[in-house]
């Protein structure tokens, strides 16, 4: 049994990885193809699809919108996440587990249901759809990620460090700034990067909640109707893929370094 396992396990793992990542690899491959039709054999290599990207005003608008939404969602969800993570790691109160569960729930809720519900509620409240409503939706789905990263930053934080600071004459605010924030700074940066990445790639909520201003995923969705635009989309997709991968990698490196400092492992999301 063990021998069979040891022979087939590597094969299984290989197939699994191929299935998972092969389609992703096609993206950059076809984005440098001279032909607009994504098909082998490649007709030739070119960077023209990339060169066209900066000359597309609608794309630049969408990128700018995504940047605004991403930064706003990242900052707000991280601020809310700091408050929640500190409360949940520091204090023992009634309903603590339930509240933690409710905050994390958007991770597993069907996103389309959340999007429709939010749309109905926001319209009922008299909001007109705009980038602002997209930000609200993105905060909702970013907070679970922020919480995961920040909780691991706050956990294992020796409370006597804050007492030592107070004992040495520092005020409550000074202690928060000089000890607490300084020590969880890596987790905060990590939370900002992860939230930004989530917001940047998010489609369904943006689709329902955006007004006339498109974010990048919405722009891509719109372009897919035109076969001739496909290589441009592939090029853009490749850039997004690389960017997201880099951001999440940086976030995880920072988070691990911080975790090592407070002797705490856990809360990894990638």
């Amino acid at each position, binding site marked *: 049994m063990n021998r069979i396992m040891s022979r087939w396990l590597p094969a299984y793992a290989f197939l699994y990885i191929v299935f998972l990542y092969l389609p992703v690899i096609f993206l950059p491959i076809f984005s440098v193809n001279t032909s607009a039709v994504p098909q082998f054999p490649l007709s030739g290599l070119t960077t023209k699809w990339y060169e066209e990207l900066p000359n597309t005003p609608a794309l630049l608008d969408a990128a700018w919108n995504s940047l605004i939404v991403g930064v706003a969602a990242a900052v707000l969800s991280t601020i809310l996440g700091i408050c929640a993570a500190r409360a949940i790691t520091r204090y023992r109160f009634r309903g603590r587990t339930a509240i933690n569960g409710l905050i994390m729930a958007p991770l597993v809720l069907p996103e389309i249901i959340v999007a429709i519900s939010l749309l109905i509620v926001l319209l009922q409240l008299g909001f007109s759809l705009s980038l602002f409503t997209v930000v609200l939706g993105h905060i909702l789905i970013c907070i679970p990620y922020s919480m995961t990263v920040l909780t691991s930053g706050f956990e294992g934080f*020796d409370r*006597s*460090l804050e*007492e*030592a*600071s*107070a*004992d*040495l*004459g*520092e*005020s409550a605010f*000074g202690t928060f700034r*000089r*000890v607490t924030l*300084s*020590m969880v700074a890596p987790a905060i940066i990590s939370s900002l990067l992860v939230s930004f990445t989530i917001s940047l790639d998010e489609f369904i909520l943006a689709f329902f909640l955006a007004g006339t201003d498109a974010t990048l995923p919405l722009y891509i969705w719109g372009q897919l109707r035109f076969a001739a635009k496909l290589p441009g989309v592939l090029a853009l997709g490749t850039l997004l893929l690389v960017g997201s991968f880099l951001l999440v990698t940086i976030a995880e490196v920072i988070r691990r370094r911080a975790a090592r*400092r*407070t002797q705490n492992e856990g809360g990894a999301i990638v």
Partner: protein
Amino acid sequence: MSDRPMIEIRNVTRSYGSFKALDDAKLSIREGEFFSLLGPSGCGKTTLLRMIAGFDNPTSGSIFIDGQPMAGIAANRRPTNMVFQSYAIFPHLNVGENVSYGLKRLKLDAGEEKRRVEEALEQVSLTGLGKRGATELSGGQRQRVALARALVMRPKVLLLDEPLSALDKKLREQMQVELRRLQQAVGITFILVTHDQYEALAMSDRIAVMFGGRIAQVDKPQEIYQRPATRQVADFLGGMNFVKADVVAVNGETITLETLGFGRITTAKPAGFSGNGASTTLGIRPERLRVMWDDEKAKHEIAGKVIERHYFGEITQLVVNVDGLEKPLSVTETNDFGADDIPVGAPIRLGYDPDALVAMAD
């Protein structure tokens, strides 16, 4: 050390619901004194220390530091500094930054701040390690950084919460000597919380022994050890033979007792003795009973038979059965006269000084 009180604890009680972590504590600690709060875990010693530091507040009663009432004064505005049990070294700062942490708020000029940090590092023998990262330190070094960080603030009172408990035995004994020397050099009032009786005895000017939220006895180390006020105190500070004694007479400060093994003894009346009890407890430390060899004679002797012998290197413990005593006596004797060769079952005579017998409240 002066006679001026630096800390006064007036009827301080700390309750958590119906549980009293500290029950009506009264204590006066002098300026420049090395004072220990000694007791088993849960006796309220740490609770009391944390209330002096300002991390916790009394349910009733009041605390005075240098004549000032501390009610409503937060930890960051008290003239105390603390060495934490975990040391609480800031891991994101280096040694120098840890030590200068509290000075930053004082807005000293750069030269003065640097001078004080270096002086503090020198006091704890860490000269030249200012740039070392906090996570690269050994346990002993972390403790020294915690000390320097507190001393650099020049507090009126330094509070030490079990500072040596995380160190190994050798280092602990070395630090006991160093801490005592440091306290005498700086002349600041030190308050040490410990559950280690030898640590308290070796370092302190005075000790308060605590049990179950109450202060059982406050006195100098020799007095606490030789004249424990209660059975509990005697038991907590090393071995003690307890003998049941009938009260014959009470005369002012003295008490006359009758025991089966030691006969009639007149000794100091224990502080907690109510005065009308028919019986009390008499105690004698195992090392105050001496083995009488061959024709050696003592003025006061008690005879018995060795029933057990335990070898501990520099000393031997003998367990001696004495007719009339409900429990056998424990005797410790240094091995330079061959106490480790006394056979089990041998008859033995033990000499003692009646002054070594101490009456205790139960």
